[in-house]
């Protein structure tokens, strides 16, 4: 049996005997092995690996940030940083029925737009579909977007949102985290935006280490102190 938060590489033995094979692991002859590089962990008899790299695989209900890359009759095609292009139907963009013969789709969204959307369907056989018919969703008018590794999003959010709330509180920024590793930052001040970006990049880089929330806290406090000295 492995220790908690032990660094593992693919093919390493994690547990032997009566255990369940969780995320990023596989079972062979009652033994559980890692299938990705990451930190192994277990909850009761569930063994899993928190991966340190990998692509985003859509999950129904996920909030994602995507780029509109193409348009067809009645649909927008949206790149959501996944191996699959997602589809946004015009009927999922407006609250009433949409008639593409009478209305211009570009009135709502056009190629190059960035949208905050929710995944409403996805399986092995069909590409994901999106909706923006919910409050808060839709075209993103302004802000700054940074990309992180999608597998590190849970680390950025932290336990019950502890990490992301810390950054939001300390920098006074509006931060929206897309599950696909795209993060939208809106700040009143340029310095706080730079600080939030710095903190998020540090989390991305150090996602595999412990005591990260404390270090982020220190970083923000230190940077804020320095910038207040400059302001004087």
């Amino acid at each position: 049996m492995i220790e908690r938060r032990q660094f593992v590489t693919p093919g390493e033995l994690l547990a032997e005997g009566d255990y369940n094979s969780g995320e990023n692991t596989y079972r062979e002859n009652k033994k559980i092995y890692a299938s990705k590089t990451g930190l192994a962990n277990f909850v009761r008899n569930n063994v899993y690996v928190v991966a340190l790299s990998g692509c985003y695989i859509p999950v129904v209900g996920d909030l994602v940030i995507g780029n509109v890359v193409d348009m067809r009759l009645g649909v927008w095609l949206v790149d959501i940083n996944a191996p699959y292009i997602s589809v946004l139907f015009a009927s999922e963009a407006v609250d009433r029925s949409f008639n593409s013969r009478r209305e211009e789709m570009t009135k709502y969204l056009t190629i190059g737009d960035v949208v905050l959307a929710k995944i409403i369907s996805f399986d092995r056989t069909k590409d994901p579909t999106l909706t923006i018919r919910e409050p808060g969703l839709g075209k993103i008018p302004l802000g700054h977007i940074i990309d992180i590794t999608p597998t590190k999003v849970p680390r950025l959010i932290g336990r019950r949102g502890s990490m992301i709330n810390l950054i939001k509180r300390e920098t006074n920024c509006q931060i929206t985290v897309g599950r696909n590793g795209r993060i939208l930052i809106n700040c009143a001040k340029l310095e706080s935006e730079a600080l939030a970006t710095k903190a998020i990049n540090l989390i991305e880089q150090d996602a595999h280490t412990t005591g990260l929330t404390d270090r982020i806290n220190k970083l923000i406090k230190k940077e804020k102190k320095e910038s207040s000295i400059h302001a004087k």
Partner: protein
Amino acid sequence: MPNKKGVEKLINKKGRRIDGRKFDELRPIKIDVGVLNKANGSAYIEWGKNKILVGVYGPREVHPRHLSKYDKALFRSRYHMAPFSVAERKSPAPSRREHELSKVIRECLEPTIFTELFPRTSIDVFIEVLQAEGGTRCAGITATSVALADAGIPIKDLVVACASGKIDGKIVLDLSDIEDQKGEADMPVAIIPRTGEITLLQMDGIFTQDEFEKALQISIEGCKKINAIQREAIKNKYLVEKASIEPEPEETVNEA
């Protein structure tokens, strides 16, 4: 090819090879992980004088579309030698040999990849040989499986490859370019170290059955040593980064 008279000796009187190695000694191996920014995963291997760069892309959309498979990911690989990788300029166009190596490398890695997790996508591997000194297919396989792990593609195990052969009538591990050309036999072997399954076995030359078994044995032992280097390389990517960021100035501790 039997060793004719007049050809230089591959093993000296002290029982050492041309580059001073013992019979079962590997060339020095160094692997760097995550060297390319734009690729999803990458690795750079220096194996003796071999220098090979590997980039992994995917899972991503398949182009051209009609090649995609409805139940699993398409795994493609390209082995390519740079024009400057050998003494005489090599034409950059893919040769017969490069097509063959792309195929054997692809087929030796595919059994370890969970392609069924990513239907309708492709995983693309590009292996660029920057400098060649014998054993590039083994080095390519070894580096590619590290790059796959770096890309976060789920795999059963790191595939590892190592050649063995016969020079001056002796069975030796990890042939260099001269030993490959002047020796009697060359046999690259790739294994899945955890299970011991063999995913690549090629042979050029003549072995007796006993010699074959001995060569296979030392190849597998060599593979296991290289496997440890692979795992160390992946660990180093994260541990080195950690060390460079870890020391936070002490002064910040007190002020809160």
